[in-house]
């Protein structure tokens, strides 16, 4: 589907609107903080509108995944072409963007969370200009990853994200921010290196015949990499079920597992969350983690269907460990943010379990869980942020009786909490249900063990509610104000989504059903 404004495709607008905003912000004077904030809000606001347009006109019946024709809003320009390098042939890197049922929901999620993040960044006082400039750069990186169909471009966007995140945690974070930022940086960078190596290996193994010139052209085009016919004779990753393909799969998997984060690659997350300022935590949990599972689905699964099937039990087992381990660790925390961080590990485990089922229910459940978890954790981190702004405290034992002090806030936060514990009628339940349904078909016992996670989850969430919201108010916390208008603006859209998708998830499922069914078929038939 073609849709452009001033001759520039909608996806380019979507990706680069924040960059435009960033440039404007950099030109604005330091003093003019409100102009800076409004520019950021404008840039992300435009994204939300564009995402709305995409939601409205997106064709739900097109396959996507490996079929270039059925991607939507495609933009493809050759970006770097080097003619006839000796023994390599022609090098081709494309600026290739497109959407299918897998990415469309993530794009919508990113635009929503990015705007909410700006709203909750309103009271950042330190180096406002730099903060918002980096923030918008980060948003561009994330959005770019979700729409890029060229591996090189994907990699560029992936790395673009890393730097602003490092600074946003390292400069605007809490007391141990430097440690947290470096830890985040090292973890992700190691993953990045692994991805870079695999990408190069893939590049040299894949070449397609250019129909125009008949030349054999090496390419970073992700879709070409999915086609076994494009692998050159004797290439490192050519063939099926070879050791090198397993190694490559594993290298990519580690990269994405770090981002998800999956046990045992998860320890950067609690630190990063605890130290990051509220809006950055929202972005981190709301969007960044989804890049990991998205990468698995976009790259690992369709490019290496053979290795995916080979490692699928391993993946499901890690998912199970993450679910249980994350929930148990969450229960042992006394810092509110750390608790949510570990709960994220547990909930992202459900995503991996769902997609590892390699059937449509699990896949739909997993991707829906990505979206829902993004919304839910955003609410939870906002909730912690509200308390932190008022009291400068985050310890679970520092609070009590908030329900009496701030009844409206408590109501909204409790909806978020109950969504996180998978209460039916709220969105978390729907995606957990489909993930488990799919997973049960593939792995009976792993799923049964994983489902015990919902008991532990209920325990730590209710215990948290009890410690923070119920009981008697400590004397120090006697005049807390209920939510301000700005805070309502951040909460309400998310709460509406939580309830809406909880009662009627079909609009979200429709978006991805066709593509994900196709992906499942594609993997199970070996590509």
């Amino acid at each position, binding site marked *: 589907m073609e849709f452009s404004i001033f001759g520039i495709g909608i996806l380019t607008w979507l990706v680069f609107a924040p960059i435009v905003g960033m440039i404007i912000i950099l030109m604005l004077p330091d003093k003019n903080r409100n102009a800076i904030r409004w520019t950021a809000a404008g840039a992300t606001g435009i994204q939300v509108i564009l995402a709305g347009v995409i939601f409205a006109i997106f064709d739900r019946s097109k396959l996507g995944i490996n079929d270039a024709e059925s991607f939507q809003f495609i933009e493809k320009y050759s970006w770097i072409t080097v003619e006839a390098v000796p023994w390599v042939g022609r090098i081709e890197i494309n600026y290739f963007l497109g959407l299918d049922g897998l990415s469309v929901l993530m794009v919508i999620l990113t635009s929503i969370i990015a705007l909410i993040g700006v709203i909750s960044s309103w009271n950042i006082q330190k180096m406002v200009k730099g903060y918002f400039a980096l923030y918008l750069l980060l948003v561009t990186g994330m959005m770019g990853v979700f729409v890029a169909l060229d591996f090189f471009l994907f990699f560029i966007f992936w790395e673009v994200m890393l730097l602003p995140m490092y600074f946003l945690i390292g400069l605007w974070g809490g007391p141990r921010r430097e440690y947290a930022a470096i830890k985040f940086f090292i973890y992700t960078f190691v993953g990045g290196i692994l991805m870079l190596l695999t990408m190069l290996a893939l590049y040299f193994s894949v070449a397609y015949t250019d129909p125009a010139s008949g030349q054999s052209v090496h390419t970073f085009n992700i879709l070409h990499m999915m086609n076994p016919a494009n692998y050159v004779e004797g290439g490192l990753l050519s063939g099926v079920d070879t050791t090198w393909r*397993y190694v490559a799969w594993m290298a990519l998997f580690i990269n994405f597992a770090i981002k998800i984060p999956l046990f045992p690659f998860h320890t950067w997350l609690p630190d990063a969350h605890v130290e990051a300022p509220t809006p950055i935590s929202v972005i981190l949990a709301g969007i960044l983690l989804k890049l990991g599972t998205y990468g698995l689905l976009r790259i690992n699964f369709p490019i290496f269907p053979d290795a995916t099937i080979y490692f699928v039990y391993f993946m499901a087992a890690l998912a199970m460990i993450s679910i249980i381990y994350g929930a148990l660790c969450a*229960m042992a925390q006394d810092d509110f943010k750390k608790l949510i961080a570990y709960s994220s590990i547990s909930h992202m485990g459900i995503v991996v379990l769902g997609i590892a089922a390699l059937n449509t229910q699990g896949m739909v459940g997993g991707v829906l869980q990505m979206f829902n978890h993004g919304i839910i954790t955003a609410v939870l981190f906002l909730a912690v942020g509200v308390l932190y702004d008022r009291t400068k405290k985050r310890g679970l034992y520092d609070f009590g009786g908030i329900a009496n002090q701030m009844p409206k806030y408590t109501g909204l936060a409790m909806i978020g909490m109950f969504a996180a514990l998978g209460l039916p009628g709220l969105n978390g339940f729907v995606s957990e249900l489909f993930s488990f349904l799919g997973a049960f078909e593939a792995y009976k016992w792993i799923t049964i063990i994983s489902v015990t996670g919902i008991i532990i989850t209920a325990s730590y969430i209710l215990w948290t509610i*009890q410690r923070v919201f119920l009981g008697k108010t400590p004397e120090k916390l006697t005049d807390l104000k209920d939510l301000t208008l700005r805070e309502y603006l951040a909460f309400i859209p998310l709460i509406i989504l939580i309830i809406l998708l909880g009662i*009627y*998830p079909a609009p979200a499922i429709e978006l991805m059903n066709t593509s994900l069914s196709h992906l499942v078929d594609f993997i199970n038939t070996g590509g």
Partner: protein
Amino acid sequence: MLLPLLGFILLIFFGKKLPRQGDWLASGLMLTSLILSLVLLVTKLSSVPNESISANFEWAIVGSQTISFGIMIDNLAAIMLVVVTLISTLVHFFSMGYMKDDVRYSRYFAYLGFFSFSMLGIVLTNNILLMYVFWELVGVSSYLLIGHWYEKKSASNAANKAFIVNRIGDFGMFIGILILFFSFSTFAFEGIFDSIAAGQLPFGSTGWLTAAGVLIFCGAVGKSAQFPLHVWLPDAMEGPTPVSALIHAATMVAAGVYLVARVFPMLTADALLIIAYIGAITALIAATIAITKFDIKKVLAYSTISQLGYMIMALGVGAYTAGFMHLVTHAAFKAGLFLGAGSVIYAMHKVLHDMKDHQTDAQDIRNMGGLKSKMPVTYWTFLIFTLAISGIPLTSGFLSKDEILAGTLAFSTLNGHWLLPLIGFVVAGLTAFYMFRLLILTFHGKPTDEKRISAIKESPFVMTIPLVVLAALSLFVFYSFNPFGASSGWFYAAMERPLSIVPEMLQPASGAVFYEAVSSVHTVAMILSIVIALGGILFALAVYHWKKVSAEKLAQKAGVLYSGSTSNWYFDEFYNKVFVGGLFSLNKAMRWFDENIIDAIVNGSAVVTQGFATISGWIDNNIVDGLVNATATSADRAGGLLSKIQTGKVQTYLVYIFFSVLVLFVLFI
């Protein structure tokens, strides 16, 4: 036929609309729902045969599977609907008096409305997934209502406990649902039953069919507070008393029984036997605990558990109609008992409040006594309820209990499980005993404090009228015109036992065989049950009224049994130590592991890399620098610094890459 359907959609709609408004609106809407359900029940019953009305809509399409939700009304649902709306309406009215000065009055009614909505959802759904959805929603409303006075730590603890213990049961139910969906690709009861009837089995094995049934039953174990998950219900008494009447006596806890009745056709004989024994154990344990409790609500709570055990046992032995009938009759008299207790507590509380006495427990029956003349309406209705629960003829309780006992006796004659009727009769005796103990200690005898008791006043009309209505409903005429036989009444006609659809060799004794056995033992069972109930009552009178037997001496003689009973057979202690304690140590261990092992590896590798960096930095500065004749020192410094950073990183990558590749090879190649 379409009109009642419309009524129901409206009803669900009303249920949703209820919250946030004044009590009159809430109660008025509930009353409207009641009238609609009554109309429906009458239309439903007058149209024979028993056909179910249903309607579906598409909820989601995943892959090529369509998941649709819908409602279904058969006689089971229609009767349950009246029970729920009736009790709910009465409790709404009662609450107007009981909760009059509460700080969160409107929120209380909102939650009541939410509860009623979810409960009606459970009753109306035609689909096990949707039932699970509403199942959890009633759990939440119960959580919110138990924790209504959340400033009290004990209240929020009880709320958590209720929710989490229920979650454990729901976990089983969820797995059961997964098995069913996996096997039959549908959540609809009808579709599941059709597939089983057509000979399909989960994983092709009969064992899994039994397992699926038992797992679904786990949900009922949680919700209906059956052994071993019964521990949450007594604690749930922290909630306001009308809530206990509605949720924790009459309706929500009965949902488990309703669930078993719903899936009854797919339960195999093995599954039913497990269900019967769970019910029997529950009935016995709870009854033995109830006899030593002094808190008026705790006695009633354990009695509820015990009666629920009866119902579950009845379903297990195949006395389907009797079990469900007991649910209905029990709903009326137990709600009545709780509301009566509420009325007493309300009066006590008021007096204690006026006397500025904050020490005395308003719920302890040792502080009562002699309330009979002060609260006549409460007393007389309470007496009727007590007679009903004890199973004395002319009451509704007699009808249903008698049928259950006859059912267990018949079951034992067919299969030789003699323990079940034995427990049944013992529990009947215990029930009569502890209920009369409660009645005597509360209303008869000499008050412990004359001044306090003389100030007690009868509760206002909004509270006594519901009591009178429920007392009337505890009489036999509403269920059968024959006071000694339920089977000739309309209820039995409307609630025929559904045919089992499991493969023939797994089927329980068929309805015809079973009923024949029942009718042959019926008279024996009836006489026995009357004698035992009267025996229990006489013994209670002897101990507490005429004081012929000393309660203290009895307690001493019972020894271990007595202390076991007073401490609830140590279930809580055991669970706290083993499960809660275990979980917490596991949490701590995992946290320790995370911070000290996994993180240590990460930090350790960082330290190692730093070490490398320092060493190479040192080499760079001292050896390389020494070798090279430096011309510009400052440039050198910069170079040294740079190389420090760069070398550091490359080393990091190398180390990581090396280790990942190593791990990879070790693991998979």
